């Protein structure tokens, strides 16, 4: 008993392999803390993880193949189902890739609404991360407080788009429709209540000594390793690299918003936790700024061959009716070429590689999901840790299997 206490974190050593004391444990794919259908093949020496091998693909549905058989505008609904905690981010990356190929300008109001909705979605996504990763470590009540906040955001997204989990709100050339009347006031109300909820989380999680001892010094990854393994988003910023594509490869006008990039240097689960917590405040700040900029104006770009016309126009103008029919029935041709469109999703760099051969359907669409890349670094973070810490590491990576397996 006394030796076990002396040995607490970090000082465990693997037994001599010749003693054949190692065993292999299959963790998942139905394990509750693997956030979906992830299977880990763990080689264990007692409680110590000697080797971890993630096994993915249980949720593979061939989405990238499906894109090639759908028109550009039909592909948007597929993206909702990839990272299902951040569907608006996926929509944005996809439509912006198509817009880059089409080279169309997006009106100011649509840009502001995109930023507003994406930041709300980022908060919602981080709420699920905080709730579930706390649940994995045994803190039950954080989960309920988080999902209460997320519910409010989902209601807002539903009010704007009609869908809670699958909004498909952004369309090539703008938005599906304008925000409903009184939407800004509902967001303001949420913005006013949210700081109190943040205080609750800080008390429940940040100030919790059990939480701290479960996360500090666990799942370390160095700055060099993090870059080499391609980590992005909060995982990279937790290792001391202040990279945020909203600042460094700006899109939808993010360069004009005032926000900070939270960076922690410890590279452990605690650092990644702190980065995400601080990001919640920054997203809150951006939503406030976006609300101030929300001025009346067009929400679709002036590209009649690509953007569906308004219902009203279709009743008055013959050409609008023709365009509507052609876009729906035949789609629109996208100029030949290839683009890579990266955005800062809630989990890291979400890149869309889109290639067109000039027709109404893409030739190839590839999603570079942040979860896919971040998960590949799991062995580096979890080898040499205890088996219970693997759960903490997975929670800190914030993975969504829908995006990993596609």
């Amino acid at each position, binding site marked *: 008993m006394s030796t076990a206490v002396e040995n607490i974190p970090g000082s465990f050593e693997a037994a001599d392999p010749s003693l054949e004391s190692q065993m292999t444990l299959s963790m998942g794919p139905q394990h509750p803390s693997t956030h979906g259908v992830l299977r880990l093949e763990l080689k264990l020496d007692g409680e110590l993880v000697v080797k971890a091998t993630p096994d993915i*693909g249980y949720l593979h549905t061939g989405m990238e193949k499906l894109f090639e058989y759908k028109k550009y505008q039909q592909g948007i609904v597929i993206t909702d189902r990839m990272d299902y905690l951040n569907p608006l981010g996926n929509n944005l990356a996809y439509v912006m890739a198509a817009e880059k190929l089409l080279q169309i300008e997006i009106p100011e109001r649509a840009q502001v609404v995109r930023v507003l909705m994406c930041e709300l979605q980022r908060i919602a996504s981080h709420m699920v991360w905080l709730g579930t990763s706390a649940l994995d470590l045994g803190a039950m009540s954080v989960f309920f407080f988080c999902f209460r906040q997320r519910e409010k955001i989902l209601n807002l997204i539903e009010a704007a788009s009609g869908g809670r989990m699958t909004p498909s709100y952004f369309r090539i050339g703008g938005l599906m429709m304008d925000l409903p009347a009184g939407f800004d006031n509902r967001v303001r109300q949420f913005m006013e209540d949210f700081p109190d909820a943040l205080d609750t989380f800080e008390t429940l999680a940040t100030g919790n000594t059990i939480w701290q001892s479960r996360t500090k010094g666990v799942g370390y990854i160095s700055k060099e390793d993090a870059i*080499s393994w391609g980590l992005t988003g909060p995982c990279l910023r937790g290792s001391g690299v202040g990279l945020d594509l909203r600042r460094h490869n700006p899109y939808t006008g993010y360069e004009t918003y005032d926000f900070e990039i939270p960076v922690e240097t410890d590279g452990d689960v605690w650092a990644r936790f702190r980065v995400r917590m601080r990001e919640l405040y920054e997203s809150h700040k951006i939503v406030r700024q976006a609300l101030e900029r929300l001025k009346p104006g067009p929400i679709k770009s002036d590209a009649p061959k690509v953007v569906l016309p308004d219902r009203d126009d279709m009743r008055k103008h013959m050409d609008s009716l023709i365009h509507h029919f052609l876009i729906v029935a035949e789609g629109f041709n996208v100029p030949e070429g*290839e683009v890579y469109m990266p955005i800062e999703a809630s989990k890291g760099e979400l*890149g869309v590689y889109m290639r067109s051969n000039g027709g109404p359907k893409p030739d190839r669409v590839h999603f*570079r999901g942040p979860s896919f890349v971040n998960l*590949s670094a799991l062995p580096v973070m979890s080898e040499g840790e205890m088996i219970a810490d693997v759960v903490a590491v997975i929670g800190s990576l914030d993975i969504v299997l829908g995006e990993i397996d596609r």
Partner: protein
Amino acid sequence: MTEKLHEYVEMLKVRDSAWVADVKDAFGEVTVTVPGEAIESVCHYLRDDAGFDMLADLCGCDRGPEDDPRFEVNYHLFSTIHYDRLRLKVLLSEDAAKVPTVTGVWKTADWHERETFDLFGVVFDNHPDLRRILLPSDFDGYALRKDFPLRGYEPYSMN
């Protein structure tokens, strides 16, 4: 907008003119076509001397069974120092769909290359663990090839 990206291309040309087979500038992105056998040296050089310390993405692409070279492998390089992006492209014919691995340059290439192997059948030479990643290990065919039917050849059952 892309002048700075062309500087990296010039650097490559100065280092070894055989490295740059073709340069394309479109939609604000620069694509450098690199001969397959040189890709590892090119990546090493760009990482160490041009600051491209991150491989953002690696993906395969099938131009269709009639085309030769049929396959493309796209490397999307990114830098956490100067935040520039560069695309490298390797063209591969169907009978020699082989390219050296870049896992020695960026560790993240591991899963990306496995995915490309899984879905296109492109072989990455000297890859430490080239197995299928998304599809089951006994899956027949390469799902993202253009001649692979959308619904597959027959319903797959796991035995």
